[in-house]
């Protein structure tokens, strides 16, 4: 991970419209952001799309970054993109409700590729509710402190701590 001075220099380059600086930013964050999206969606192709969307949006949004924790700012955008996707998915679900019910009766488990099928963690993560799952992934991939996470979620730190503890404890139980 680059030092904070290097990161500041890269961000300034991005603000100036340097493709090279954006390229460095992609190299620095693509792995963690992809992991975040992948663990939330359980789908590689969808994670590809969300990751692309995030970085292209970043070109327009980088000017609005006014300092503070860049990771927190970046993962807030990632979280918004994921939640937008979920809302869109819910809209589509309502529109295709009848067809979905027909399909659900035929499908016994979510369709996954072979590599995804053997990922026990992904299967157990899907047993958690969406908010808890997102909280755990935010903690793990964004590397934010609990204080930063609480600020991002606009809730008291005690609430974030409690929810995260319950979620991690549950995940631990599921994985054992």
């Amino acid at each position, binding site marked *: 991970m680059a030092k904070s001075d290097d990161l500041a220099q890269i961000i300034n380059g991005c603000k100036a419209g340097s493709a090279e600086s954006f390229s460095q930013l992609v190299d620095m964050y693509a792995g963690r952001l992809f992991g975040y999206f992948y663990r939330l969606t359980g789908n590689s192709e969808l994670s590809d799309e969300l990751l*692309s969307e995030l970085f292209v949006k970043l070109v327009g949004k980088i000017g609005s970054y006014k300092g503070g924790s860049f990771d927190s700012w970046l993962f807030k955008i990632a979280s918004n993109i994921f939640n937008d996707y979920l809302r869109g998915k819910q809209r589509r679900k309502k529109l295709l409700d009848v067809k979905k019910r027909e399909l659900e009766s035929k499908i016994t488990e979510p369709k996954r590729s072979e590599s995804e099928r053997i990922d026990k963690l992904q299967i157990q993560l899907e047993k958690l509710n969406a908010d808890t799952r997102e909280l755990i992934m935010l903690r793990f991939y964004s590397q934010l402190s609990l204080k930063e996470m609480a600020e991002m979620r606009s809730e008291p730190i005690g609430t974030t701590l409690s929810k995260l503890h319950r979620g991690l404890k549950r995940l631990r139980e599921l994985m054992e």
Partner: protein
Amino acid sequence: MNSRNEENLKDLFERFVGAEEAEGAVEDFQMAERILREHAAPEPDKELIAAIKSEITEAIRRRKESAFRRIAYKMAPVAAVFIILAAVSVRLFERGGGGPVKVTYASMIPAAIWESDDIAIDDLDLAILTAEIDELESEVVTLELGENGGNGRSAVTELEMELVEINSDFWEG
């Protein structure tokens, strides 16, 4: 990231629960995070990263073009005003700097009269000239009609010569 590494989970938990319970909670955190590390998510494809970088380059290009267009649209009316002002200024300068236009014209009045400041004398000269011309015209008409006893042609020639002489004298002032 640094702030996360600096945070003390046990202290944080102890703000809300007892010491023993806090210790158990920290252990839950550590165990779950170990599981997450052991089950690392796949890395994004190199092709995906290349495609994203390419998309970013294109997005930057579009933004720059859009910004240039916005500036051009904003500047166009200002530039137009400047051009109009410059054109008007040049025209005004040309008019103002050229000095009075010298008007040239033809005149029936001789230069001596025109340039003279003595109006009374000038009027008198004009009246004499006009009277002489009228008299000569009537004599020419008389001669042409043969009212002077048949010697009209030589008399007309004589009169014409006289007229030329008067005219010449007059214009010389």
